[in-house]
């Protein structure tokens, strides 16, 4: 985490002074981007860097769906299964994925290639169904698209 401090310092410039705790979520996100998850040592580092109590960081960590404290598969496949996506085939997409990968939502393939999750509305209702692969949205996803997509994710 320490090597990211110059970046955090840069972010601070646009914040009102004296409110370092505001950087907590941005820092956690950045750390996770860097390492793939948030490790105990990162938490310790942020306690020191931001001057917030450790309990506050733990409370925040478990509040947000995107933050995690353990590594997952290389490709994180997140299927939106909210109203609009379900009306446009999300449940079939999900069945398709569980069938192909042999895992249920919340699980990771033994080769650690894929982790599968369900998520609530991603704001892609007009281009449903949507599959989020790591940061990227894959919208209007048909079964054929899925074939090609999974091919590319090694």
């Amino acid at each position, binding site marked *: 985490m320490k090597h990211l401090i110059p970046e955090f310092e840069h972010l601070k410039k646009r914040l009102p002074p004296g409110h370092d705790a505001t950087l907590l979520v941005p820092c956690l996100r950045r750390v996770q981007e860097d390492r793939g998850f948030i490790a105990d040592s990162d938490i310790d580092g942020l306690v020191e860097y931001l001057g917030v109590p450790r309990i506050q960081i733990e409370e925040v960590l478990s*509040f947000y769906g995107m933050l995690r404290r353990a590594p997952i598969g290389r490709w994180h496949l997140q299927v939106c299964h909210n109203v609009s996506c379900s009306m446009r085939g999300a449940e079939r997409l999900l069945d398709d994925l569980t069938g192909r990968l042999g895992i249920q939502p919340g699980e990771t393939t033994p080769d650690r290639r894929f982790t599968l999750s369900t998520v609530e509305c991603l704001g892609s209702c007009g281009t449903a169904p949507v599959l989020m692969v790591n940061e990227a949205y894959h919208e209007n996803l048909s079964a054929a698209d899925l074939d090609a997509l999974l091919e590319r994710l090694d």
Partner: protein
Amino acid sequence: MPGRKVLMDFEVTPDSHSLAAYRARGGYQALEKALRTMQPREVTQEIVDSGLQGRGGAAFPAGRKWQGIDPDDGQPHYLIANADEGEPGTFKDRWVLEYNPHALLESMLLASYALGVRHAFVYIRGEYDIPWRRLDAAVEEAYGEGLFGEDILGSGFSCDLFVFRGAGAYVCGEASSLLGSIEGSRAYPRNRPPRMTVRGLYQAPTVVNNVETLATIAWILRNGAAAFRAIGTERSPGTRLISVSGHIRNPGVYEVELGYSWAKFLHEDCGGLLCNKPLKAVIPGGISSQVLTGKDAKVLTAEEVECLTLDHEKLRSAGSSLGSGGMIVIAEGTCMVRLLQIMLRFYHHESCGQCTPCREGTGWMHRVIDRIVAGEGRPEDIDTLHHVARYNDGTTICGLGDAAGYAATAMLDNFRDEFEYFIEHGRSKFGGNLECR
């Protein structure tokens, strides 16, 4: 074309979101004019006169909200653009961020000037990647040309903008909850009083507005409040970005002049329903349409839709609202029990857990409907759902609890027979169908 345009008044090209393109269509002129010739209070007055209502869900008059802040009271003030856009069915702010980000930035500068804001924020939902990249690039462009930072355009006015990315919690769209998120604590919605314009971010007076609400400001300052009022209806001036999804042929984001005929919008502009099925119902403004205002039903049936116009007062009298502008079109043959199941799962998943009725009630309703869908419903379940929904409404800290209650009430009231059928026969009247096939 569903009426005149405010935010979509240009042709989208590969670089129409750039600063240069925005300037070429008159962008940042309003800012220059305001900084040179207007007092902060005059900017606020212009917004009051425009009659602009909030586009985040509650349709609260933006000018009136701003008047809650005294720009000269010597305290720091904060402005936050709410780009959390988590309301199921809603994806219109994303359009602004991706295609017209400078309209938002110019508007935020105007609002900051009006409200005496030195530090402004955009709170953008954590999952949005492309929209964030576009916004971030626009912010850097603006900083590069001295539109943010110290002494903007030599006017003596200074303002910084911080783009804050969320991390996956629907409740952060609730205005007071995102304050907690920015402050680095759990994003708990806050009790009112105090209002946020009295004590908001870092305990200082704060205005939170939806992205679309804010993005409209620049147009109003450029063209004048009267020009804005000339669009839309007497009591719902202007336009709304409507994001249409579900069983519709041409889903997407449309700018609709308020007062436009709904039937025309659905059947002509959006190309009518998929598979040429008849319309069963419409969720007009995100599955929590009512978040902050009414206690009314929020699902509209086919007959109701056909004779409506799209504006705040018509929908309110029809017992629903334009809400977040997230319109979900539902064709005949769809199982409403399963739809409600998804909604209740959503509220249960997203409840922050802070207050008793929502924490317990959303889970309770979710478990009851899961049981019904599993074929193990009991006749008294409908009453139980009604009871829980009733006491989630108006008893909670924030609108999430209320919304869960409305969702259940509206579905049960409008489609009671489907629920009774499911419970009696242990299966869906429509084969559990969600898709239009």
